[in-house]
């Protein structure tokens, strides 16, 4: 399978947050600053890739009935590893991500990919799927966090952007701002897809017309 | 000053506009050359034509009859020849069989009709006469009167109410009838009280018809009959609202008036009963109000049934170029139609020819939830909710549509000009079908 296509699928075509509507909780909660968002994104990416790999590797070994507990254990193990590593080496990040690190366990993106993809596909494919999905998640949460941080704090990655005279839209970094910004992003994504769909249909129609004309001209000729 | 009563819940005050035809004296219209008798002017089983093209008929001769418990009959208003039996489309969008009669001008009447006869000796005989005379509720609903006057055995009646509210704007037929046929009307009422063995009769008259009220009051000798003045408010003529206004009794939801020992009849129906019982005269004519700025001479016409709208309009000076809407009935509940060849039927109380400026024709807008429709709904419904659910055919949530009396008060007040009543009426039909299918 084409690797780029796989990645593009995770990042855009079936973006886990904006298209599959999964993983809203961490997306909303950990997007007050870009730094946290990237941390969260990569943590989820790590868990996704890890659990996808292991579950894919174990797919012949895993009995159908014990599937779910095994998935849970594998995922939870990776989550705990992330939790411990962050605690040990990235303490400020660990502190700001808080309860949302252990909650990666119940993040539907991870479980969903394990169930829908990794348990049925080869290790390599699962790896790329995990990376694609992880990047899609990371990118989405980062974009959201960038908007919120810039608007709500006037900074990006902690760097002041507009100087003292800028008065930040504080609501952007408060819970309502998270919901509203994500909602607008979802709507934007929908809009793009609607437009692309319309264009595709128009193109198909035009092609049909063309072939019709062609046929007609052939028949006439 | 007499005490004035009215119903409590909801109601509106549309401009009355009765002045146009109120003072016009009753004009009698002679039968024109062609008459069109629909076989289905009532609620219930459709009557079947008893005649065929080429048949000769006499005045008052029975020409169509239905079968079943609830049905009615149709009689010829003139003597003449049956030209054809054809289908016509009526404003309620239903195709109806119409018997076309060519008037021979001889005006020969059928034997034993239109002559004084003995009063019936029993209730059964009385009801039989009414049934044979083809009398139905002439206020607009068209429910066969003999059925209505014969409630189930276990129900007793103690009050007879004559509906003279005439709450619809423009209409003045009942008013005219009460003024011009006071004696007959009162005698008819007494007759019904005798036959149904009821002790009390209220005549509910809105205060904008004070003249009729005073006249009836002064001419009435019967102690059982009491004319009562009603505060003008629409829809006072609706059965349940009128019963409440006059007796304070509340008809339970989805039940008929006899649940509270009451029957209600329209003024014109009472007069028709009088004609049938006293003179053996079937229902072949009625008073129609022609009004609106689109008719040259707004008037009240005693017309034979079956005359076309164009014929009766010409009789009243013709339709002028202002007329943009034609309405069968009152402006609140009547139906618009565009075919002047349709005939007058037993339930045609008014024909309105309305000019642009008389009619609101604003575009429907979005609901702003002002709640005005709720305040005016006489049935205590939530019209805006029912409209939304009706439009969406959300059958689970629209059971209340069955309680709508389609009075149109909601549409009347809606500041967004939403067609609430008609949407709900449509929903009501659909829902009724849906329930039937379910069973």
């Amino acid at each position: 399978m084409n690797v780029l296509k796989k990645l593009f699928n995770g990042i855009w075509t079936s973006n886990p947050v904006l298209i599959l509507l999964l993983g809203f909780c961490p997306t909303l909660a950990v997007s007050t600053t870009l730094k946290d968002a990237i941390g969260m994104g990569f943590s989820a990416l790590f868990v996704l890739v890890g659990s996808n790999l292991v579950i894919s590797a174990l797919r012949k070994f895993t009995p159908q009935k014990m599937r779910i507990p095994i998935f849970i254990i594998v995922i939870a193990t990776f989550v705990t590893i992330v939790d411990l590593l962050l605690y040990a080496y990235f303490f400020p990040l660990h502190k700001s991500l808080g309860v949302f690190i252990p909650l990666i366990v119940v993040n539907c993106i991870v479980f969903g990919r394990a169930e829908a993809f990794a348990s049925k596909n080869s290790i390599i494919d699962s790896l790329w799927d995990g990376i694609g999905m992880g990047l899609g998640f990371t990118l989405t949460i980062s974009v959201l966090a960038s908007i919120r941080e810039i608007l709500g704090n006037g900074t990006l990655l902690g760097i002041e952007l507009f100087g003292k005279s800028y008065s930040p839209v504080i609501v952007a970094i408060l819970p309502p701002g998270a919901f509203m910004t994500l909602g607008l992003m979802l709507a934007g994504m929908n809009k793009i897809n609607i437009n692309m769909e319309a264009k595709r249909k128009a193109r198909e129609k035009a092609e049909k017309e063309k072939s019709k004309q062609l046929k007609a001209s052939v028949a006439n000729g | 000053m007499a005490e004035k009563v009215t119903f409590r819940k909801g109601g509106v005050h549309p401009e009355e506009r009765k002045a146009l035809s109120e003072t016009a004296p009753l004009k009698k219209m002679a039968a024109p050359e062609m008459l069109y008798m629909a076989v289905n002017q009532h609620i219930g089983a459709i009557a079947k034509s008893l005649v065929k093209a080429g048949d000769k008929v006499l005045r008052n001769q029975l020409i169509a009859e239905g079968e079943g418990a609830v049905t009615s009959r149709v009689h010829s208003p003139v003597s003449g020849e049956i030209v054809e039996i054809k289908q016509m489309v009526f404003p309620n969008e239903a195709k109806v069989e119409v018997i076309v009669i060519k008037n021979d001008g001889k005006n020969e009447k059928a034997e034993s009709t239109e002559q004084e006869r003995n009063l019936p000796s029993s209730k059964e005989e009385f009801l039989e006469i009414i049934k044979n005379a083809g009398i139905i509720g002439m206020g607009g609903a068209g429910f066969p009167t003999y059925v209505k006057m014969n409630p189930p055995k276990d129900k007793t009646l103690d009050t007879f109410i004559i509906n003279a509210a005439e709450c619809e704007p423009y209409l003045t037929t009942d008013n005219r009838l009460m003024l011009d046929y006071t004696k007959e009307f009162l005698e008819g009422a007494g007759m019904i009280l005798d036959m149904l063995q009821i002790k009390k009769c209220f005549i509910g008259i809105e205060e904008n018809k004070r003249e009729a009220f005073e006249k009836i009051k002064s001419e009435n000798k019967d102690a059982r009959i009491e004319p009562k003045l009603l505060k003008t408010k629409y829809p006072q003529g609706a059965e349940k609202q009128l019963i409440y206004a006059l007796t304070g009794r509340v008809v339970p939801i989805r039940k008929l008036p006899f649940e509270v020992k009451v029957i209600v009849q329209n003024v014109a129906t009472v007069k028709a009963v009088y004609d049938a019982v006293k003179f053996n005269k079937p229902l072949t004519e009625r008073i129609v109000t022609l009004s609106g700025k689109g008719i040259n001479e707004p008037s009240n016409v005693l017309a034979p049934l079956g005359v076309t709208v164009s014929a009766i309009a010409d009789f009243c000076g013709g339709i002028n170029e202002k007329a943009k809407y034609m309405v069968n009935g009152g402006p609140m509940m009547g139906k618009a139609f565009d075919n002047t060849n349709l005939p007058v039927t037993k339930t045609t109380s008014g024909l309105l020819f309305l000019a642009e400026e008389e009619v609101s024709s604003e575009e429907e807008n979005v609901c702003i939830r002002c709640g005005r429709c709720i305040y005016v709904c006489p049935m205590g419904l939530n019209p805006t909710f029912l409209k939304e659910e009706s439009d969406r055919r959300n059958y689970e949530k629209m059971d209340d549509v069955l309680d709508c009396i389609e009075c149109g008060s909601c549409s009347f007040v809606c500041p967004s000009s939403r067609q609430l009543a008609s949407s709900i009426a449509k929903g009501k039909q659909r829902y009724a079908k849906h329930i039937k299918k379910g069973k």
Partner: protein
Amino acid sequence: MVKLIILAIDSMLISNIVLMRFLGICPYIGVSKKQETAAGMGFAVIFVMVMATLISFFIQKGILDPLNLGYLQTIVFILVIAALVQMLEVTMKKIAPALFDALGIYLPLITTNCTILGVAILTIQKNFNLVEALVFSFSTGIGYLIAIYIFAGIRERLEWSDIPKPFQGAAIGIITAGLLSLAFFGFTGLVKL
């Protein structure tokens, strides 16, 4: 006592689990098309949340802490919750079929509802005692019920609305939740923890 009441009000309204803490958003958006189902989900969440919190509380205090196995918290809790939901489904069907009919269909959805695990972990993180854990989990559940129930009411009304196409579905749901959250800011400071 006062402290418990304050804790209850705080976790119900002020720090509402959905609108302020961002937990359980997926079922919040997913199971809120109708008020009846939202109420069912809400009650199921309360029920499971209290049980899961208490059980995981005992496991933490009775097993993990003494054995110094705190790092196994996540894995143990999620297994406990998954097992609990399974068991609840079976026993409820047998013992209380009426309750099962009302709440049963929501149970499988609850395993992936991060409020359950979230509250269980928060209870340990905040170092609550048993009574506090009980009050915290119960009132958080009530907060979830409140949030999802009123949200479902609004969404039912939005069914009639002429929402622009790109906003239909999850987008308008999320934004409406944001506006609810905006409104709930009014409760700020009613009690101070």
